[in-house]
C-alpha cells in the first residue's frame, strides 16, 4: 500500500503499525512527533496505530524558530 511521509509517497508492506513504519524509514531513537492524517498521535500509541492505504504521515523534529 502507499502512504505519504512528509509529502513523499512511499510504498510499504501491510499489515504495518505506525511504529514499524517509522523504524523502517529511518526514524529510530529520534526526538520526533507524529501526526496521522492531520491528527497528533502520541508516542505511546505508535505501536497500536494501524496504517491504511493513502494515510498521510507528518514527522516533525525541533528546528530553529522565532
Amino acid at each position, binding site marked *: 500500500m502507499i502512504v505519504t511521509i512528509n509529502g513523499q509517497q512511499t510504498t510499504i508492506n501491510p499489515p504495518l503499525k505506525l511504529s514499524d513504519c517509522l523504524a523502517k524509514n*529511518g526514524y529510530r531513537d*529520534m526526538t*520526533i*512527533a507524529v*501526526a496521522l492524517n492531520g491528527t497528533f498521535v502520541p508516542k505511546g500509541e505508535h505501536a497500536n496505530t494501524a496504517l491504511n492505504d493513502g494515510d498521510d504521515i507528518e514527522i516533525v*523534529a*525541533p528546528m*530553529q*524558530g522565532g
Partner: protein
Amino acid sequence: MKALHIDNTILQSRLFLGTAGYPSPEVLGWAIEAAKPGLLTVSLRRESAAGKGQDFWSIIKGFNIPVLPNTAGCYGVEEAITTAEMAREVFKTNWIKLEVLGDDYTLQPDPFRLLEATEQLISKGFTVFPYMTDDLVLGERLAALGCDILMPWGAPIGSGRGLNNPYALKLLRERMPGETLVVDAGIGAPSHAAAAMEMGYDAVLLNTAIAKATDPVAMAGAFAQTIEAGRAGYLAGIIEPQQSASASTPAIDKPFWHQEN
C-alpha cells in the same frame, strides 16, 4: 530587579530570543551566551531520516534555558492545535507561542482563529502565549479565555520597524495591568526594545534584529543591556513630558540679578 515568573518558572532575563536565521549554529550559540535570554523560541519542521533537527536540539538543550515552541506558519485552527500537541511531546512543555496567521503579506495574526485556537488549547492544558495584534478588545477576550500572557506585535515579523503603534501598546499596558505583556515581533534596534520596556512591558521577544545584525553576538549583548535598562527606567518612574521648559538650575540667588524698579 524582580525576576519575571511564568507558571512558577523564574526567567533569568526579560529578553526572549528566537533561534532562527543565524549565520551558523556557532553564532547562534555565542549570541545566546551574550544575550542570556529568559527563554528561547523554537519550532517544529519536517524531519528527514538523516535527523537534521536532532543536532539543533542538542545545542539548545545544552543551554538549560526554558524553551517556548511556536506554531509558526499556521493559518488554520486545526493545524495550529496539532502542531501545539506535537510540540508538547517533543519539547516536554505546556507552553506554546500560538501563531495563527491571517495575512501572508504582513503575517498579521488572525484574531478570530486565534481566539478559537486559544480556547481549545487552554482546554487541553496548554499555557498559551498568543501572538496577537495590538487590539485592546482582542487582548481582553484572550484574557477572559484564561491567557495570563499576551504578546502583541510591535510591527510585522522581521520588519525591524519597531513599535508601529505606541498608543495601542500603551493602552494595552494601562488597561491590563495584571497581564504579563510581551512585545513580540518587529523590533529592529535596541532603542525599540527599550521603548517597550519603558512603557512597562514585561519582556521583549525578538529574533531577526539579532540574527541578521552585522555582528549578531554584539547585538545580542546590546539588546540584553537595553532591555534591562528600559525595565529599570520604568520601575524608577519616568517623568511626564511637558510642553514648556522648566529650568533645572534654581533661579534663586542667581548672580548679577537686580530687581527692576
